[in-house]
């Protein structure tokens, strides 16, 4: 088996009142592409948040090992520094903080040292070209006034710059037009190719998967992985929905 990147065991997590994840098991190897599907409200986005360390959720049992290290009780910034990345379904807006100065700070954290301005600009320009993002976006306030598609592109831009070992993409393709899906997929492929990056793609549609070979597909029902299969599972779901996997 390839080198393991992520190993989640019996993960249980809740918000203040409600338990949402009821014992999730998941393993992802280096460079693998996994797809997470499931009906609305099954807990897919919650799993993404809990893996990334969102303080709105409390882990009540189970463990998260990332590259062999126990990150279960680490904060989000530590997880990011270790090489985890979450592309947000709804990226947040931060007025007054430019995309480029934010990205440079993040990159310095990720690489653990000062990055020369010119080197940074060169890298940024190259990454923006892949996504066909207008250079002016770098100077604009982070996500402020960006359209839905621009926000998603900005997420993938961060992915390309930060070069994580595992990227969790939460509904990155939703609400995008055909051209934007193509560019975003292009960005994801570049990430995969350049650093043999692993992917956990949370999605409802299959559009983003058309150009990405899938290693494993997981179906989440009621806060648990109900079934795991290969890429062909996606087709089965497309034909007959999630009903077939429900326990009841």
């Amino acid at each position, binding site marked *: 088996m390839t080198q393991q990147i992520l190993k989640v065991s019996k993960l249980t997590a809740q918000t203040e009142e409600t338990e949402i994840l009821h014992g999730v098991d998941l393993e992802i190897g280096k460079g693998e592409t996994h797809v997470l599907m499931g009906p609305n409200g099954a807990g897919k986005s919650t799993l993404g948040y809990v893996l990334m360390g969102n303080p709105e959720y409390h882990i009540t049992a189970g463990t998260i090992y990332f590259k062999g290290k126990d990150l279960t009780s680490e*904060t989000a910034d530590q997880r990011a520094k270790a090489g985890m990345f979450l592309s947000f379904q709804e990226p947040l807006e931060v007025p007054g903080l430019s995309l480029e100065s934010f990205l440079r700070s993040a990159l310095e954290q*990720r690489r653990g040292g000062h990055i020369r301005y010119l080197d940074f600009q060169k890298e940024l320009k190259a990454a923006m070209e892949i996504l066909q993002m207008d250079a002016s976006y770098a100077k604009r306030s982070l996500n402020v006034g960006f359209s839905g598609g621009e926000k998603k592109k900005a997420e993938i831009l961060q992915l390309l710059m930060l070069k994580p070992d595992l990227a969790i993409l939460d509904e990155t393709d939703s609400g995008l037009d055909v051209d934007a899906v193509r560019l975003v997929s292009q960005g994801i492929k570049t990430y995969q190719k350049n650093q043999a990056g692993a992917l956990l793609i949370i999605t409802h549609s299959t559009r983003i998967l058309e150009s990405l070979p899938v290693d494993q597909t997981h179906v989440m029902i009621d806060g648990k992985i109900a079934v795991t299969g290969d890429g062909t599972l996606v087709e089965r779901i497309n034909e007959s929905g999630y009903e077939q996997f429900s326990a009841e």
Partner: protein
Amino acid sequence: MKEKTYVSDIDRSIYDIRNEEKDVYQVKEGLTPAIVEQISKEKKDPAWMEEFRLEALQIYNSMKVPDWGPSIEGLDIDHIVTYVKPNTKMSADWSEVPQDIKETFERLGIPQAERKSLAGVGAQYDSELVYHNVKEEVAAQGVIYTDLESAMHGEYADMIRRHFMKLVTPHDHKFAALHGAVWSGGSFVYVPAGVKVSIPLQSYFRLNAKGAGQFEHTLIILEENSSLHFIEGCSAPKYNVANLHAGCVELFVGKNAKLRYSTIENWSKNMYNLNTKRAQVEEGGTIEWVSGSFGSHVSCLYPMSILKGRGARMEFTGITFAGKGQNLDTGAKVVHSAPETSSYINTKSISKDGGASTFRSSVVITKEAEHSKASVSCQSLMLDAISRSDTIPAMDIRNGNSDVGHEAKIGRISDKAVFYLMSRGISEADARAMIVSGFAENVSKELPLEYAVEMNNLIRLEMKGSIG
């Protein structure tokens, strides 16, 4: 996770170094005609000024303390020393300034800033200017930048008499009357017609004496088609008795002239900052206020602009940062009294650790001020649940063809946004600081560079104490 919005007190170590009080001369605390006469004599006032002071004192005694705004109960004027003369004369040569005073200003970066990026500098220590200098090439253009006292005896004596406390009269309010009675120090700037001063002038006010008041007077006159950027900075070390700052700023902006007046106020937290600032703008002229209020225990500060001539403009950009034990009541006033005048007020306020910030605005558009435009926007950010933020706008519009807008927003740091930044490897404290700096960005970009850097450092320091 718990609410993690506690931020520590600001690191004021640079500002807090007190010098031993080696002043040659102090008047007794409190306020009597005898004390005012004594100040007048000490300052070698012309006769009209001595009269003016005594009259102002009478007005002061007959007026009540304003019954609105933050409480100033902790301020007992009978125990404020109104005049403290440092042990030196004003000099234009930095090397002649006494060592301890020199070190104070050097720590605050004053002479360095002058060398780098200023056309002239004034430094006031307690009640008197200790240093005043203006670059030769600026002086050669006919620009006058000096202390008000010497200007009162020279070529500009008459001009000062015609303008001094004519815009802010002692009848304005009790502390304006107090100022009229005991004012000392400050600057006089005169820019002749057509002269554009391309680099800023700066005055720095430092109050070292314990339990003292600072009452400097700044008078700036810009003739037609001239322009100037004037910067004032203020600070003081902290004592456990109240200090008072009741300065007065009067700005006369001539036809088509443009004045930018920037202030960074970082008084210590035992200071009552009851300052009065006013500008009068002639036809086609512009006043731009940039105001950063960070220090003091209580501040009441509402710079006012009177748009007197057709097409006169004002812009006010302000930021207020109220921390523990601070009640900062700030804002802006504008009177449109001529047609086609415009005003644009844009403020941000941040409160944390139980601090209270109040934003007051007053916009008056007279019947004559037809086709005028006014816009007021105020945004507040509260860093925790124990801090306060209030907005009190007032508008009085007397014609039907002016365009007036108002917008106010009060919010908190979004936990979701903090998580978003953290998910990219940024620590919680840095994420919060970035959000606060971003909130203040449209103000900091208006500040002179070294102040913008200082403001960002200030925010960063404030946020450093966050529990991660």
